[in-house]
């Protein structure tokens, strides 16, 4: 091995290592930076507030992670979230909160399943499919509610969103529990591996006997389910819900997924990465608020951060690709001669 090859190999290892822990390093640096600038950031009460505040985005980010790893995209999570929030509030007015949540989550699951069917059976590009369903679902929500806020007076409806155990919000616990459960499912079950397989090479997976329709469709169902849970959390936090509850939510959800290092296009990513993405975005927002930075500047910075996060991943690929293997194709020079035993002409 000459020096050049040695360097290339190390660049390769370093860039790979960076792309796998870079997001984590960024989160730690960000927390340290914000804490130095504003020591009130890293205190128990503030962290618990952040957990409660970001629980809906975090939960939806988990579902989105599944969809993005499978090579898809879900633009409709914001609409499903609003529909489910409204549903749970409407039912919660007269029924017990548990019934309200179960029905609302079921609605989210069904909506996600429909997305899945559109993407798999009708073979619609996921971007278009979920853009369409997003519009349709928010239309339905608006018709059902007339865009009036639905207020729930039953105090037990608010327990999930507002109550805490020793200062630890139930909503934050729910988010963490879902991160753990769905993270384990994705990482350690055959089903989770088939999500990576389909996202990495759908053809190969189909030919290997994986039911790609089911796997793909189910990822959208999970995304819808998560949006349903997030809707319940928000409705409970506010003890009310409205059709136009948070129209830009989908962008935050995508941001947390991408910030963690899950790659649009599929095959790579993880739920724990999304947790880190939530941490980064929440720290940014909360830190800026504590530092009294204008919300418009926050938008600018968030925009830069999301582009920079993706660029760092692709930059490492660029380095690898350009240095060692221009088209990033496994070197066919590593082959033996075909069939030299076979000369019997």
């Amino acid at each position, binding site marked *: 091995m*000459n020096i*050049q*090859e040695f360097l*290339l190999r190390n660049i390769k290892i370093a860039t790979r290592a960076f792309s796998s822990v870079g997001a984590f390093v960024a989160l730690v640096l960000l927390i340290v930076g914000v804490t130095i600038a504003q020591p009130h950031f890293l205190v128990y009460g503030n962290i618990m507030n952040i957990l409660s505040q970001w629980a809906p985005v975090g939960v939806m980010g988990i579902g989105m992670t599944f969809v993005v790893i499978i090579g898809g995209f879900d633009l409709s999570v914001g609409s499903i979230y609003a529909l489910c929030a409204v549903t749970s509030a409407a039912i919660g007015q007269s029924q017990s909160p548990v019934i309200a949540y179960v029905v609302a989550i079921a609605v989210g699951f069904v909506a996600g399943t429909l997305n899945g069917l559109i993407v798999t059976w009708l073979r619609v590009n996921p971007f278009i499919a979920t853009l369409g369903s997003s519009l349709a679902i928010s239309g339905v929500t608006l018709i059902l509610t007339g865009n009036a806020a639905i207020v729930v007076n039953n105090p037990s409806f608010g327990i999930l969103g507002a109550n805490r155990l020793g200062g630890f919000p139930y909503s934050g616990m729910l988010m963490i529990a879902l991160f753990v459960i769905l993270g*384990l499912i994705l990482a*350690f*079950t*055959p089903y*989770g*591996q*088939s999500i*990576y*397989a389909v*996202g*990495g*090479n759908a*053809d*190969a*997976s*189909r*030919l*290997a*006997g*994986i*039911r790609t329709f089911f796997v793909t469709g189910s990822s959208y169902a999970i995304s819808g389910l998560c949006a349903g849970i997030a809707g319940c959390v928000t409705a409970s936090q506010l003890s009310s819900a409205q059709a136009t509850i948070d129209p830009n939510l989908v962008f935050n959800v995508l941001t947390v997924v991408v910030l963690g290092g899950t790659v649009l296009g599929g*095959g*790579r990513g993880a739920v724990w990465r999304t947790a880190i993405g939530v941490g980064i975005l929440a720290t940014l927002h909360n830190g800026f608020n504590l530092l009294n930075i204008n919300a418009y500047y926050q938008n600018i910075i968030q925009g830069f951060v999301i582009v920079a996060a993706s660029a760092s991943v692709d930059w490492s690929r660029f380095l690898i690709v*350009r*240095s*060692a293997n*221009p*088209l990033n*194709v*496994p*070197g*066919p*020079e*590593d*082959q*033996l*001669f*075909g*069939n*030299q*035993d*076979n*000369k*019997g*002409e």
Partner: protein
Amino acid sequence: MTVSARTPEFALRIRSMSKTYPGVRALDGVTLDVMASQVHGVVGENGAGKSTLMKMVSGAIRYDSGSLEVFGTPLPGGEPHRAADAGVAMVYQELTVVPEMSALGNVLLGRLPSRAGVVWRQKAHADFDNAAKSLGFSIDPDCRAGDLSTAEQQLLEIMRALSSQRKLIILDEPTASLGPEDVRRLHSVIDNLRSRGSTFMYISHDLGAVLEICDVVTVMREGRIVETRPAKEWSRSDLIHAMLGSHSLAATTPRQGSTDIGEPLFAIEGLRAPGVDVPSLLLWPGEIVGLAGLVGSGRTRLLRTIAGLNMASTGTLLVRGQRVKWPRTARQAVKYGIALAPEDRKLQGLVLNQSAAWNVALGQFKRGGGGYFVSSKRFISWATSFTSRLGLRIERLGRQVGTLSGGNQQKVILSRLLARGVDGLLLDEPTRGIDVGAKSQVFETLRELANRGSAILWTSSELDEVVANSDRIIVIAGGRVVAELPKGSTVRDVLEHSFTGVEGERQKVEAGA
């Protein structure tokens, strides 16, 4: 049961199966029985329908009419998981590796063992190790599959099929990128599994291997079964005769005229790049130079470096005696008249869903389309002047290039280079996955281009091919030129120099260490 001892069990029964693609009858009433516990070979020219037939058995594609039974289970086609449940595993000709997943994940794709709903890692590793051991293949189960070489990826796929415990295993050109040692091991694993009751279907262009390993061999031609016989009753020439039907094998035309020692078309001096070190390489107009080398000898890397696809390269290039800047992009190299026809036509050479004419025009749409407004008609009429020289029929130009045979796809790429005025042609595995008839056509085309003054540098992993079809052979090892052999050298000569070269490299490394 005693009954089954007398009546032979069928692993696969296909009845009058047909499949039509737009404009092509891929399969025409195929009826075929495959006995259990046998190795059944299928041979035929490319486009004979072998792969299509196999893909129907594995469920990768649907059939139009007919019926299909695997161990008595009727299969509707088009549903790979049902075929898998019925006991079919297949190694496809095209690699179907998931690059982002680990080697382990790829071998156990779709059937990871689980315990209590969670992936059972110990069992998975044991399964992987067993499969690897039986093939004598050592590989880190956790390494990323996309980082492996083509040969290693191919072995992963073979491991995937062999370790699946399924009863009917279809191997479509499994040895295309394997070395002789790996092929030998594969064959012994097949032998072993057959004796334990597995049934194999073995498709290969390597007739020697087919006759050696198979019990029964079926020949296909133009979507039909020509004949099925026990392997003992076939000879190599019988097989070729049955495969080709009426048209026969043309021998490659030798080089016309003697070497006209004028100026070299391209002179490469002091070329250095990671894994490449070539002090001097001269290419004369009118000659076909074969590049031969063993595993990891850097054949592809050298070709890519000369074609400007290696940023980290330095050297001097003289084009017709004119010193020019060493090319570091493909665009620069094309300007000097050097271009590479890459090994992987489908991934690196063609936009598969576009027409053949469009692909000829790729990179020069303005010229090919006759101005700022392009039309497929103009593309076709423009492309014809190049494709007709290579014997590509005009009615094929409007078709999607992905539907053409490998040989015709190769011609599309060569036409493109021709149209760009490239006279330094670098070809990486131009004959890979191409049948015998189309191969000799490719060589005729190359000879034709050389006679018009091009210099051709090409490589193939089939050494006999390189020896038979080159005017001069350059043997490389470890990225260095270790020998230059004249026409008429034998495979043995090349191997001797290769191995000596490899040993030399190793000694150098050992001395340096």
